């Protein structure tokens, strides 16, 4: 019957449409890799010295801090929040770590214990700002901005204008030594990535974060303790910020508040460029790894290309807009904030 034929045609089309949609989703989730590959290709052709072992080591070195930061940020963004506290908190951790290890300013020499203390402080502060966001129902963006200010203040107060130089040979080696040409710090960063990957894929916590970001209401129905999961996210963020502060301090060999500046927005950019949606529930740490590399490669190549420092930012901005615009879904009634 004609009617029957037509209606089964529509059924078929429906199936095709659904298939196409999931194909599109699959394509979009690979887009960051394509973007990275494209950038590497482009820069290899244009930037002298970009495609070399030396520069590969260099990129691996430079990616370490953005990578660690974006690992912490990924979980926050997966839940649909944003956190800016690393700006001040990272500086604080770096500053006090430098003051507590063997250094030029104080008589303390606590070695590794200093790192632990600073990390604990970082986790506590992050948990506190997380609690204010979760329990107090305050927007994380604003809370973390205020916390960032406070911690930057404490950082400056700690060393009163004269940053401490790190003298501990262990940390000096940590900052400058390498294994197979890859700096130790990069291994730490990759370790953090590994832990994040395990957290995301191998623990309940990871599944719950995804569930909350996907749909908080469903998550609540399943019986997930939302507040506790969110708090854990901030604890992990605190660990990452602590590491960023510590790594920043040993990299530059001293503890100053500026360690925290310019780590937050690049990390958020990395996470988003990697394909994690700012409204939560989509993406993950592997995406952020790609994102961190994209951001670092752009930075690195622009310097190698000798692009005037005046326009570097602009070029970077344009590349990022294009990359993001390519890798998101479009639709007439799609809601994007």
């Amino acid at each position, binding site marked *: 019957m004609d009617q029957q034929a037509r209606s089964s045609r529509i059924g078929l089309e429906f199936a095709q449409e659904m298939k196409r949609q999931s194909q599109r989703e699959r394509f979009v989730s690979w887009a960051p890799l394509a973007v990275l590959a494209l950038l590497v290709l482009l820069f290899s052709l244009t930037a002298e010295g970009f495609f070399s072992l030396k520069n590969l080591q260099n990129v691996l070195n430079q990616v370490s801090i953005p990578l660690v930061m974006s690992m912490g940020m990924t979980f926050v963004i997966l839940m649909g*929040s944003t956190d800016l506290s690393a700006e001040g908190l990272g500086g604080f951790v770096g500053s006090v770590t430098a003051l507590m290890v063997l250094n030029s300013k104080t008589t303390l020499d606590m070695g590794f214990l200093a790192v632990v203390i600073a990390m604990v402080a970082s986790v506590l502060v992050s948990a506190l700002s997380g609690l204010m966001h979760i329990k107090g129902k305050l927007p994380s*963006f*604003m809370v973390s*901005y205020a916390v960032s200010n406070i911690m930057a203040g404490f950082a400056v107060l700690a060393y009163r204008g004269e940053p401490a130089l790190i003298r501990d040979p262990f940390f000096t080696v940590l900052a400058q030594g390498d294994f197979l040409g890859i700096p130790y710090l990069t291994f730490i960063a990759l370790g953090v990535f590994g832990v994040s990957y395990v957290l995301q894929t191998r623990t309940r916590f990871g599944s719950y974060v995804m569930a909350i970001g996907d749909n908080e209401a469903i998550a609540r129905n399943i019986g997930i303790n939302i507040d506790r999961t969110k708090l854990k996210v901030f604890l992990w963020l605190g660990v990452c910020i602590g590491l960023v502060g510590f790594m920043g301090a040993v990299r530059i060999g001293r503890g100053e508040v500026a360690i925290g500046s310019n780590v937050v927005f690049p990390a958020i950019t990395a996470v988003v*460029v990697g394909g994690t949606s700012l409204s939560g529930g989509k993406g993950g740490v592997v995406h952020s790894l790609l994102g961190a590399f994209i951001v670092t490669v752009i930075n690195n190549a622009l310097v190698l290309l000798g692009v005037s420092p005046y*326009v570097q930012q*602009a070029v970077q901005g344009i590349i*990022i*807009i294009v990359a*993001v615009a390519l890798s998101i879904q479009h639709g007439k009634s799609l809601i994007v904030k």
Partner: protein
Amino acid sequence: MPKNPSFWRRITARRETLTRYLSLVTTVLLMVVFGLIRSSFLGPRNIVNILKDLSPVMVMACGEAFVLLLGSIDLSIGAIASCSAVLLTVLLPVMGPWAYAVVLGYGVLTGLLNGFLHTRLGVPSFIATLSTQAIWQSCAYLISGGQPLTMLPPVWPYVNWGKIIFLEAVPLLFLVALAVLVAYAFINRLTAVGRVVTATGANERAAWLMGCNVRRSKMLAFLCSGLGAAIGGILFAIKLKSGIPTVGTQYTMLAIAAAVLGGVSMTGGKGAIALTLLGAMLITVIQNGMNVIGVNGLWQQIIFGSLLLAAIYLNSDKSHKGLIVK
């Protein structure tokens, strides 16, 4: 427990009004405290200071408030303000007063660009404006040749209006900023596109299906934000008599904070542009007051952050239990 629903409705309604004016209460209380510690805080000279300091951040904040009402965010306003300040400084000697028009035009353009990237290309506003921020910052460097520019005496006549003070307490700069605030509040309250901005923030799907022109309203919001930032930049330039390519950088976050303290919800759909005045006032009063009473410079950032946190806490809307806050 009274079961009467209208009773609860009344309570909620009252709480809403209370929340709405809480930043006013906080500001007034803070002013009293500062005034008690040092009476010159409330002297006409310092009132002029506060009003003058308040002006640029208020203009930027009320533009930002438009975007926040949508539930989006505009991170480019600081760079736009910087670029406008530079542009004005460069153009005043060449074009005279027409420079103002060019800078305002530039502000509109920046807003439209943000709106285009967000609504047409579908880039989330956070990333879109973070990127345009980088672009405009670069432009500011390029235009100024990388140097802070000073307005030289020949162009002072064009900018000296910034020094006019009425009744010994009300600077003209503030009146200009207030005019912008009032205009923005009017656009939001009294025009269709403006109302749709709020409606879109509250429930975009519904606004879309109601036949509201959602895209146009989003464009308007970003346009207002860009224009506000440009006016903010003009005010900076006039206040400082210079065009410094980094002058606005730190005001992005302060403007967002001011808008939020004025009661605009970051998830959109709630808040009044006019109350941004209170938010900006609160921030300025904290910063100014700490210097007036002589808080140690090393402690200022800490105290500023703490007071900001407290203010956000007080101003937050906790009326909904199941509220999802991002």
